Protein backbone atom coordinates (compact mmCIF):
# COMPACT_ATOMS: atom_id res chain seq x y z
CA UNK A 1 0.00 0.00 0.00
CA UNK A 2 1.67 3.24 -1.08
CA UNK A 3 1.99 5.88 1.56
CA UNK A 4 0.38 9.20 0.96
CA UNK A 5 2.52 11.14 -1.49
CA UNK A 6 3.73 14.47 -0.31
CA UNK A 7 3.25 16.11 -3.68
CA UNK A 8 0.35 18.52 -3.77
CA UNK A 9 -0.26 18.06 -0.06
CA UNK A 10 -0.82 21.20 2.01
CA UNK A 11 2.28 22.61 3.73
CA UNK A 12 0.96 21.95 7.26
CA UNK A 13 0.72 18.25 6.37
CA UNK A 14 4.29 18.29 4.97
CA UNK A 15 5.44 19.76 8.25
CA UNK A 16 3.58 17.10 10.25
CA UNK A 17 5.18 14.26 8.28
CA UNK A 18 8.61 15.86 8.59
CA UNK A 19 8.14 16.19 12.35
CA UNK A 20 7.25 12.51 12.56
CA UNK A 21 10.61 11.72 10.91
CA UNK A 22 12.08 12.20 14.40
CA UNK A 23 10.29 9.09 15.71
CA UNK A 24 12.54 6.02 15.54
CA UNK A 25 12.05 2.35 16.33
CA UNK A 26 13.31 1.91 19.92
CA UNK A 27 14.81 -1.48 19.06
CA UNK A 28 16.48 -0.37 15.82
CA UNK A 29 17.13 3.33 16.47
CA UNK A 30 18.72 3.96 13.06
CA UNK A 31 15.32 3.47 11.41
CA UNK A 32 12.45 5.92 11.59
CA UNK A 33 8.91 4.59 11.73
CA UNK A 34 8.51 5.95 8.20
CA UNK A 35 11.57 3.98 6.99
CA UNK A 36 10.02 0.83 8.43
CA UNK A 37 6.63 1.47 6.90
CA UNK A 38 5.04 1.40 10.36
CA UNK A 39 3.74 4.93 9.85
CA UNK A 40 0.64 4.46 7.72
CA UNK A 41 -1.08 7.83 7.88
CA UNK A 42 -1.01 11.21 9.55
CA UNK A 43 -3.66 13.85 9.22
CA UNK A 44 -4.94 17.01 10.84
CA UNK A 45 -8.67 17.13 11.54
CA UNK A 46 -10.98 20.13 11.29
CA UNK A 47 -10.67 20.65 15.06
CA UNK A 48 -6.83 20.63 14.77
CA UNK A 49 -6.66 17.13 16.29
CA UNK A 50 -3.75 15.18 14.84
CA UNK A 51 -4.43 11.52 14.06
CA UNK A 52 -1.43 9.27 13.43
CA UNK A 53 -1.99 5.72 12.21
CA UNK A 54 0.62 3.04 12.81
CA UNK A 55 0.76 -0.73 12.25
CA UNK A 56 2.79 -3.36 14.15
CA UNK A 57 5.49 -5.50 12.52
CA UNK A 58 4.48 -8.54 14.60
CA UNK A 59 1.34 -9.07 16.71
CA UNK A 60 3.35 -9.11 19.92
CA UNK A 61 5.81 -6.34 19.06
CA UNK A 62 6.54 -4.75 22.45
CA UNK A 63 7.82 -1.54 20.81
CA UNK A 64 4.35 -0.36 19.78
CA UNK A 65 3.45 1.26 23.11
CA UNK A 66 6.76 3.08 23.20
CA UNK A 67 6.38 4.25 19.60
CA UNK A 68 2.94 5.62 20.49
CA UNK A 69 4.41 7.52 23.43
CA UNK A 70 7.25 8.82 21.27
CA UNK A 71 4.82 10.11 18.64
CA UNK A 72 2.90 11.99 21.32
CA UNK A 73 6.09 13.36 22.86
CA UNK A 74 7.62 14.52 19.56
CA UNK A 75 4.40 16.13 18.34
CA UNK A 76 3.79 17.69 21.75
CA UNK A 77 7.23 19.30 21.71
CA UNK A 78 6.57 20.59 18.19
CA UNK A 79 3.51 22.41 19.51
CA UNK A 80 0.72 20.14 18.32
CA UNK A 81 -2.29 19.96 20.62
CA UNK A 82 -4.49 16.89 20.83
CA UNK A 83 -2.82 13.82 19.28
CA UNK A 84 -4.54 10.52 18.71
CA UNK A 85 -2.52 7.43 17.76
CA UNK A 86 -4.46 4.66 16.06
CA UNK A 87 -3.10 1.13 15.58
CA UNK A 88 -4.40 -0.80 12.58
CA UNK A 89 -3.73 -4.40 11.54
CA UNK A 90 -5.03 -4.12 7.99
CA UNK A 91 -3.30 -4.30 5.61
CA UNK A 92 -0.80 -6.52 7.40
CA UNK A 93 2.71 -5.10 7.55
CA UNK A 94 5.30 -6.66 5.28
CA UNK A 95 9.07 -6.27 5.00
CA UNK A 96 8.43 -5.08 1.43
CA UNK A 97 7.41 -1.73 2.93
CA UNK A 98 10.92 -1.11 4.20
CA UNK A 99 12.28 1.87 2.26
CA UNK A 100 15.46 1.66 0.16
CA UNK A 101 17.21 4.11 2.46
CA UNK A 102 15.97 2.07 5.40
CA UNK A 103 17.56 -1.07 3.93
CA UNK A 104 20.87 0.73 3.54
CA UNK A 105 20.71 2.11 7.10
CA UNK A 106 20.04 -1.39 8.41
CA UNK A 107 23.08 -2.78 6.59
CA UNK A 108 25.31 0.01 7.92
CA UNK A 109 23.99 -0.74 11.43
CA UNK A 110 25.07 -4.41 11.10
CA UNK A 111 21.68 -5.97 10.36
CA UNK A 112 21.20 -7.73 7.01
CA UNK A 113 18.11 -6.33 5.27
CA UNK A 114 15.32 -8.74 4.27
CA UNK A 115 15.63 -10.64 0.99
CA UNK A 116 13.28 -9.57 -1.75
CA UNK A 117 10.93 -12.12 -3.26
CA UNK A 118 11.72 -14.81 -0.68
CA UNK A 119 11.10 -18.50 -1.19
CA UNK A 120 8.21 -20.31 0.47
CA UNK A 121 8.44 -20.21 4.23
CA UNK A 122 6.58 -23.52 4.43
CA UNK A 123 9.54 -25.40 2.95
CA UNK A 124 11.65 -27.17 5.56
CA UNK A 125 15.43 -26.89 5.84
CA UNK A 126 17.73 -25.28 3.33
CA UNK A 127 15.13 -23.01 1.76
CA UNK A 128 16.61 -19.86 3.27
CA UNK A 129 17.23 -16.90 1.00
CA UNK A 130 20.70 -15.76 0.06
CA UNK A 131 21.79 -13.30 2.73
CA UNK A 132 24.87 -11.10 2.46
CA UNK A 133 26.98 -10.61 5.58
CA UNK A 134 26.55 -6.98 6.69
CA UNK A 135 30.11 -6.97 8.07
CA UNK A 136 32.27 -8.31 5.22
CA UNK A 137 29.86 -8.57 2.28
CA UNK A 138 30.35 -12.32 1.84
CA UNK A 139 27.48 -14.46 0.58
CA UNK A 140 28.90 -17.46 2.48
CA UNK A 141 26.37 -17.23 5.30
CA UNK A 142 24.06 -19.60 7.13
CA UNK A 143 21.07 -19.41 9.42
CA UNK A 144 21.59 -20.35 13.06
CA UNK A 145 17.99 -19.84 14.14
CA UNK A 146 14.86 -18.38 12.55
CA UNK A 147 14.18 -16.54 15.81
CA UNK A 148 16.45 -13.83 17.19
CA UNK A 149 16.75 -11.03 19.69
CA UNK A 150 13.51 -9.40 18.55
CA UNK A 151 10.41 -10.74 16.81
CA UNK A 152 11.50 -9.33 13.44
CA UNK A 153 15.01 -10.80 13.31
CA UNK A 154 16.71 -14.15 12.73
CA UNK A 155 20.15 -15.26 13.90
CA UNK A 156 22.72 -15.83 11.16
CA UNK A 157 26.48 -16.27 10.95
CA UNK A 158 29.07 -15.60 8.29
CA UNK A 159 31.33 -18.45 7.23
CA UNK A 160 33.90 -16.03 5.78
CA UNK A 161 34.50 -13.56 8.61
CA UNK A 162 32.97 -15.91 11.23
CA UNK A 163 30.94 -13.08 12.78
CA UNK A 164 27.35 -13.67 13.91
CA UNK A 165 24.79 -11.16 12.69
CA UNK A 166 21.07 -10.36 12.77
CA UNK A 167 18.96 -10.80 9.66
CA UNK A 168 15.75 -8.81 9.33
CA UNK A 169 13.56 -11.70 8.24
CA UNK A 170 10.88 -11.59 5.58
CA UNK A 171 7.28 -11.49 6.64
Amino acid at each position, binding site marked *: MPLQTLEDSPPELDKLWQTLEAVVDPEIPVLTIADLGLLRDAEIGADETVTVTITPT*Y*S*GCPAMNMIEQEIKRVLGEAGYGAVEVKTV*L*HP*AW*TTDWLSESGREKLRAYGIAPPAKGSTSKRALFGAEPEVTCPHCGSKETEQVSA*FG*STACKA*LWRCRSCLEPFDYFKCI
Partner: protein
Amino acid sequence: MTADTEKMTPEQQALFDYLLRLGDNAVVLSHRLGEWCGHAPVLEEDIALINVALDLLGQARSIMTYAGEVEGAGHDEDALVYRRDGFDYRNVLLVEQPNEENFAVAIVRQFLFDAWHYELQTALLQSSDARLAAIAAKSVKEVTYHLRHSSEWMVRLGDGTAESHGRVQEALDDLWRFSGELFEADAVEERMAAAGIGPHPQSLYAAWSETVDRVLAEATLSRPEDGWMQSGGRNGRHGEHLGFILAEMQFLQRAYPDARW
Protein backbone atom coordinates in the same frame (compact mmCIF):
# COMPACT_ATOMS: atom_id res chain seq x y z
CA MET B 1 -19.02 -12.09 34.07
CA THR B 2 -21.78 -14.35 32.79
CA ALA B 3 -24.51 -12.01 34.05
CA ASP B 4 -23.42 -9.29 31.64
CA THR B 5 -23.55 -11.52 28.60
CA GLU B 6 -27.36 -11.63 28.70
CA LYS B 7 -27.39 -8.40 26.72
CA MET B 8 -25.78 -10.03 23.70
CA THR B 9 -27.85 -11.38 20.81
CA PRO B 10 -27.45 -15.11 20.07
CA GLU B 11 -25.17 -14.18 17.13
CA GLN B 12 -23.01 -11.95 19.33
CA GLN B 13 -22.89 -14.62 22.03
CA ALA B 14 -21.67 -17.22 19.50
CA LEU B 15 -19.05 -14.82 18.13
CA PHE B 16 -17.93 -13.98 21.67
CA ASP B 17 -17.60 -17.70 22.52
CA TYR B 18 -15.70 -18.28 19.27
CA LEU B 19 -13.29 -15.41 19.94
CA LEU B 20 -12.66 -16.70 23.46
CA ARG B 21 -11.74 -20.08 22.01
CA LEU B 22 -9.24 -18.49 19.61
CA GLY B 23 -7.84 -16.13 22.24
CA ASP B 24 -7.63 -18.70 25.03
CA ASN B 25 -5.76 -21.16 22.81
CA ALA B 26 -3.16 -18.48 22.16
CA VAL B 27 -2.91 -17.29 25.79
CA VAL B 28 -2.57 -20.75 27.33
CA LEU B 29 -0.07 -22.05 24.78
CA SER B 30 1.90 -18.82 25.11
CA HIS B 31 2.09 -19.41 28.86
CA ARG B 32 3.25 -23.01 28.41
CA LEU B 33 5.98 -21.86 26.01
CA GLY B 34 6.96 -19.12 28.44
CA GLU B 35 7.78 -21.80 31.02
CA TRP B 36 10.78 -22.69 28.83
CA CYS B 37 12.38 -19.29 29.35
CA GLY B 38 15.80 -20.03 30.81
CA HIS B 39 15.16 -23.79 30.62
CA ALA B 40 15.39 -24.76 26.93
CA PRO B 41 18.10 -27.23 25.84
CA VAL B 42 20.09 -24.57 23.96
CA LEU B 43 20.12 -20.78 23.99
CA GLU B 44 18.81 -20.42 20.42
CA GLU B 45 15.85 -22.61 21.29
CA ASP B 46 15.16 -20.64 24.45
CA ILE B 47 14.92 -17.52 22.29
CA ALA B 48 12.84 -19.27 19.63
CA LEU B 49 10.20 -20.64 22.02
CA ILE B 50 9.83 -17.26 23.68
CA ASN B 51 9.49 -15.56 20.29
CA VAL B 52 6.67 -17.96 19.42
CA ALA B 53 5.11 -17.28 22.83
CA LEU B 54 5.29 -13.54 22.18
CA ASP B 55 3.62 -13.87 18.78
CA LEU B 56 0.80 -15.89 20.34
CA LEU B 57 0.39 -13.40 23.17
CA GLY B 58 0.14 -10.57 20.65
CA GLN B 59 -2.44 -12.49 18.64
CA ALA B 60 -4.39 -13.16 21.84
CA ARG B 61 -4.39 -9.47 22.66
CA SER B 62 -5.85 -8.54 19.27
CA ILE B 63 -8.53 -11.22 19.61
CA MET B 64 -9.40 -10.46 23.25
CA THR B 65 -9.69 -6.73 22.64
CA TYR B 66 -12.25 -7.56 19.95
CA ALA B 67 -13.99 -10.12 22.19
CA GLY B 68 -14.39 -7.47 24.89
CA GLU B 69 -16.00 -5.11 22.36
CA VAL B 70 -18.40 -7.81 21.16
CA GLU B 71 -19.36 -8.65 24.74
CA GLY B 72 -20.03 -4.97 25.41
CA ALA B 73 -19.67 -5.31 29.17
CA GLY B 74 -16.67 -3.06 29.58
CA HIS B 75 -14.06 -5.84 29.80
CA ASP B 76 -10.76 -5.12 28.11
CA GLU B 77 -8.28 -7.81 27.10
CA ASP B 78 -6.68 -7.84 30.55
CA ALA B 79 -10.03 -8.30 32.31
CA LEU B 80 -10.89 -11.23 30.05
CA VAL B 81 -7.54 -12.96 30.50
CA TYR B 82 -6.82 -12.23 34.16
CA ARG B 83 -10.30 -12.27 35.71
CA ARG B 84 -11.96 -15.35 34.22
CA ASP B 85 -11.86 -18.63 36.11
CA GLY B 86 -11.03 -22.01 34.57
CA PHE B 87 -14.68 -22.87 33.87
CA ASP B 88 -14.88 -19.84 31.61
CA TYR B 89 -11.70 -20.66 29.68
CA ARG B 90 -12.40 -22.04 26.22
CA ASN B 91 -9.02 -23.36 25.01
CA VAL B 92 -8.60 -26.86 23.60
CA LEU B 93 -7.07 -29.36 26.04
CA LEU B 94 -4.00 -29.84 23.83
CA VAL B 95 -2.51 -26.44 24.64
CA GLU B 96 -2.77 -26.81 28.43
CA GLN B 97 -0.85 -30.12 28.52
CA PRO B 98 2.25 -29.69 30.72
CA ASN B 99 5.81 -29.58 29.44
CA GLU B 100 6.96 -32.29 31.87
CA GLU B 101 10.45 -30.77 31.48
CA ASN B 102 10.56 -32.75 28.24
CA PHE B 103 11.46 -30.83 25.08
CA ALA B 104 9.93 -33.57 22.91
CA VAL B 105 6.54 -32.98 24.57
CA ALA B 106 6.75 -29.25 23.91
CA ILE B 107 7.67 -29.79 20.25
CA VAL B 108 4.96 -32.41 19.56
CA ARG B 109 2.29 -30.27 21.26
CA GLN B 110 3.46 -27.28 19.20
CA PHE B 111 3.58 -29.21 15.94
CA LEU B 112 0.08 -30.69 16.28
CA PHE B 113 -1.22 -27.21 17.14
CA ASP B 114 0.76 -25.28 14.50
CA ALA B 115 -0.31 -27.61 11.68
CA TRP B 116 -3.94 -26.90 12.64
CA HIS B 117 -3.42 -23.22 13.49
CA TYR B 118 -1.89 -22.55 10.08
CA GLU B 119 -4.94 -24.00 8.29
CA LEU B 120 -7.30 -22.14 10.64
CA GLN B 121 -5.66 -18.75 10.13
CA THR B 122 -5.45 -19.32 6.37
CA ALA B 123 -9.20 -20.06 6.33
CA LEU B 124 -9.93 -17.00 8.50
CA LEU B 125 -8.38 -14.79 5.80
CA GLN B 126 -11.72 -15.33 4.01
CA SER B 127 -13.81 -14.51 7.09
CA SER B 128 -16.92 -12.39 6.51
CA ASP B 129 -15.88 -10.62 9.71
CA ALA B 130 -13.40 -7.97 8.53
CA ARG B 131 -11.82 -7.57 11.97
CA LEU B 132 -11.12 -11.29 12.28
CA ALA B 133 -9.79 -11.42 8.71
CA ALA B 134 -7.36 -8.58 9.52
CA ILE B 135 -6.13 -10.36 12.64
CA ALA B 136 -5.69 -13.55 10.58
CA ALA B 137 -3.70 -11.72 7.88
CA LYS B 138 -1.28 -10.64 10.58
CA SER B 139 -1.24 -13.98 12.40
CA VAL B 140 -0.80 -16.29 9.42
CA LYS B 141 2.60 -14.77 8.60
CA GLU B 142 3.78 -15.54 12.13
CA VAL B 143 2.19 -18.98 12.30
CA THR B 144 3.94 -19.94 9.05
CA TYR B 145 7.27 -19.52 10.86
CA HIS B 146 5.96 -21.42 13.90
CA LEU B 147 4.90 -24.41 11.80
CA ARG B 148 8.19 -24.49 9.98
CA HIS B 149 10.09 -24.37 13.26
CA SER B 150 8.15 -27.14 15.01
CA SER B 151 8.16 -29.28 11.84
CA GLU B 152 11.94 -29.04 11.56
CA TRP B 153 12.31 -30.12 15.18
CA MET B 154 9.98 -33.08 14.61
CA VAL B 155 12.34 -34.19 11.83
CA ARG B 156 15.53 -33.52 13.80
CA LEU B 157 14.30 -35.41 16.85
CA GLY B 158 12.45 -38.17 15.02
CA ASP B 159 15.24 -38.85 12.54
CA GLY B 160 17.92 -38.20 15.18
CA THR B 161 19.26 -40.58 17.81
CA ALA B 162 17.48 -43.61 19.23
CA GLU B 163 16.93 -41.57 22.40
CA SER B 164 15.41 -38.55 20.65
CA HIS B 165 13.31 -40.76 18.36
CA GLY B 166 11.93 -42.70 21.30
CA ARG B 167 11.09 -39.56 23.25
CA VAL B 168 9.29 -37.80 20.42
CA GLN B 169 7.35 -40.95 19.43
CA GLU B 170 6.24 -41.40 23.05
CA ALA B 171 5.12 -37.77 23.25
CA LEU B 172 3.25 -38.15 19.97
CA ASP B 173 1.47 -41.30 21.16
CA ASP B 174 0.59 -39.56 24.41
CA LEU B 175 -0.70 -36.27 22.96
CA TRP B 176 -2.54 -37.73 19.97
CA ARG B 177 -5.76 -38.15 21.96
CA PHE B 178 -6.04 -34.36 22.23
CA SER B 179 -5.94 -33.82 18.44
CA GLY B 180 -9.56 -34.79 17.86
CA GLU B 181 -10.95 -31.79 19.73
CA LEU B 182 -9.45 -29.45 17.11
CA PHE B 183 -11.93 -30.72 14.52
CA GLU B 184 -15.06 -31.14 16.62
CA ALA B 185 -18.13 -29.26 15.48
CA ASP B 186 -20.66 -27.91 17.97
CA ALA B 187 -23.36 -25.23 17.96
CA VAL B 188 -20.87 -22.36 18.20
CA GLU B 189 -18.67 -23.62 15.36
CA GLU B 190 -21.69 -24.49 13.19
CA ARG B 191 -23.10 -21.00 13.65
CA MET B 192 -19.75 -19.40 12.77
CA ALA B 193 -19.45 -21.57 9.66
CA ALA B 194 -23.01 -20.77 8.57
CA ALA B 195 -22.31 -17.03 8.93
CA GLY B 196 -19.05 -17.33 6.99
CA ILE B 197 -17.14 -16.02 10.01
CA GLY B 198 -15.03 -19.12 10.63
CA PRO B 199 -14.32 -22.35 8.75
CA HIS B 200 -16.21 -25.51 9.64
CA PRO B 201 -13.76 -27.37 11.93
CA GLN B 202 -13.93 -30.55 9.89
CA SER B 203 -12.95 -28.66 6.74
CA LEU B 204 -9.47 -28.19 8.23
CA TYR B 205 -8.85 -31.88 8.84
CA ALA B 206 -7.63 -33.03 5.40
CA ALA B 207 -4.90 -30.39 5.13
CA TRP B 208 -3.84 -30.89 8.75
CA SER B 209 -3.67 -34.63 8.25
CA GLU B 210 -1.60 -34.21 5.09
CA THR B 211 0.91 -31.95 6.90
CA VAL B 212 1.16 -34.42 9.78
CA ASP B 213 1.73 -37.37 7.44
CA ARG B 214 4.34 -35.51 5.40
CA VAL B 215 6.38 -34.42 8.42
CA LEU B 216 6.04 -37.72 10.30
CA ALA B 217 7.25 -39.60 7.20
CA GLU B 218 10.33 -37.40 6.95
CA ALA B 219 10.85 -37.75 10.71
CA THR B 220 10.60 -41.58 10.50
CA LEU B 221 7.83 -41.45 13.10
CA SER B 222 4.67 -43.57 13.18
CA ARG B 223 1.29 -41.89 13.11
CA PRO B 224 -0.70 -43.12 16.12
CA GLU B 225 -4.02 -44.79 15.44
CA ASP B 226 -7.09 -42.74 16.24
CA GLY B 227 -8.61 -44.04 19.47
CA TRP B 228 -10.54 -42.30 22.23
CA MET B 229 -10.30 -38.56 21.71
CA GLN B 230 -10.42 -36.45 24.86
CA SER B 231 -12.27 -33.17 24.59
CA GLY B 232 -14.20 -30.61 26.61
CA GLY B 233 -11.81 -27.67 26.94
CA ARG B 234 -13.72 -25.55 24.42
CA ASN B 235 -16.76 -25.85 26.68
CA GLY B 236 -14.93 -25.12 29.91
CA ARG B 237 -14.25 -28.71 31.00
CA HIS B 238 -10.52 -28.76 31.66
CA GLY B 239 -8.02 -31.08 33.25
CA GLU B 240 -6.28 -30.20 36.48
CA HIS B 241 -3.44 -28.51 34.58
CA LEU B 242 -5.29 -25.32 33.62
CA GLY B 243 -5.89 -24.34 37.25
CA PHE B 244 -2.17 -24.28 37.94
CA ILE B 245 -1.55 -22.14 34.85
CA LEU B 246 -4.22 -19.63 35.89
CA ALA B 247 -3.02 -19.57 39.51
CA GLU B 248 0.39 -18.43 38.33
CA MET B 249 -0.79 -16.22 35.46
CA GLN B 250 -3.59 -14.44 37.34
CA PHE B 251 -1.99 -14.09 40.77
CA LEU B 252 -0.92 -10.48 40.40
CA GLN B 253 -4.23 -9.17 39.06
CA ARG B 254 -6.15 -11.14 41.70
CA ALA B 255 -3.95 -9.94 44.57
CA TYR B 256 -3.58 -6.36 43.30
CA PRO B 257 -6.61 -5.66 41.09
CA ASP B 258 -6.00 -3.12 38.33
CA ALA B 259 -2.26 -2.98 39.04
CA ARG B 260 -0.44 -1.25 36.20
CA TRP B 261 3.19 -0.98 35.19
